[in-house]
């Protein structure tokens, strides 16, 4: 009887601890989700297209699993496909495998839309956002970029008007002391050309190595030739 009571109390305590974790968005932080949903709301107002995201995270390694959902109606609110004349929803599944598992982490991406000229996975890929990057450490930024790009692509495909940017006078400015951080350390020329430079460096290194080998071989054969040509000295007979 006492054991049963303890089990109920433990289950209740576990539910209290686990419930908030299950409700939290597993990819986006709350502030990021709010900002993303707000930018989609502005786009919906300008274009008459509903936008949203639905990302399912399955983490076998013990991290947060669950669904990260949001739309132009707010974080946690899915796209209402019944109420929207035109809609675009980014759908993704992210799988994190356990550390002892043989299979690797992976992600898949799809776009559900109901009109011609809607964004596609290829459009996102062209902009530099692929499903594989959803398993990166910064996948919250990746998701924010992917979803944020949907209205831009819709407009670029000619399916809706572009979303107007704020006037320069109205635009928010950085506060005093707010400066850019994380300046890229790799020079642009190296990022652009590292493959070509590596290839030519390989040719150069290979040529030098080959030449040195040839010189060694020549020197070695010259020494052998000298020793063969040298007269054999015999001790004088006594």
């Amino acid at each position, binding site marked *: 009887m006492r054991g049963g009571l303890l089990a109920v109390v433990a289950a209740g305590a576990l539910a209290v601890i686990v419930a908030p974790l299950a409700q939290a968005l597993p990819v986006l932080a709350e502030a*990021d989700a*709010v900002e993303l949903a*707000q*930018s*989609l*709301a*502005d*786009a919906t*107002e300008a*274009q*008459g*297209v*509903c936008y949203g995201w639905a990302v399912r995270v399955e983490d076998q390694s013990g991290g947060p699993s669950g669904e990260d959902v949001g739309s*132009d109606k*707010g974080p946690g609110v899915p796209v209402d496909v019944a109420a*929207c*004349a035109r809609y675009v929803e980014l759908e993704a599944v992210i799988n994190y495998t356990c550390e002892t598992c043989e299979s690797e982490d992976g992600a898949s991406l799809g776009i559900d839309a109901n009109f011609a000229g809607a964004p596609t996975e290829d459009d996102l890929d062209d*902009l*530099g*956002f692929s499903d594989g990057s959803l398993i990166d450490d910064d996948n919250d*930024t990746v998701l924010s*970029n*992917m979803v*944020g*790009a949907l*209205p*831009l*692509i819709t407009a*670029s*495909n000619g399916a809706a008007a572009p979303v*107007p940017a704020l006037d320069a006078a109205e*635009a*928010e400015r*950085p506060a005093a*002391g*707010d*400066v*850019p*951080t*994380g*300046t*890229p*350390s*790799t020079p*642009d*020329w190296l*990022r*652009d*050309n590292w493959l*070509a*430079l590596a*290839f*030519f460096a390989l*040719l*150069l*290194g290979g*040529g030098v190595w*080959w*030449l040195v080998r*040839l010189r060694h071989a020549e020197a070695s054969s010259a020494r052998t030739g000298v020793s063969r040509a040298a007269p054999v000295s015999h001790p004088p007979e006594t």
Partner: protein
Amino acid sequence: MKFAAIGLILAGVVGIAFTLTSSGSVRSYVKDNYKRAGSDRGAELYTSSQPPAKVATEIAKAHKPADRRATPEGVFLRYRSDYVGVMAMGAGSRIAVADEDRGYGLFFPFVGGFWGRSSGRAEGFRGGGPGGGGK
């Protein structure tokens, strides 16, 4: 055999020299490929008849950015010392190229909190206007 090795060395040296001298900057690429349209708060402005997603893809393919940010209003590319912002202008695009400090100020509503110190986040969801997306 010796000539082949020397040929490899020459090919490597010439290839490295050619790669380094022919590699321009993103700033020069934009200047050479789009129409100049003045300047704004220290940024050089250009225009294109192509939509922003296409222009941003072209620029990023020609010069790979270290980071990129996409929003409903435009695409922003980050290089070591330059920011490039591609935003809609009618059916085409308006391209702004600025150094890091000016670019951060210019594109702050879109890159603040991602490429800088500020959180730059909205305080709460206020929703959109009436009539968007409804049947």
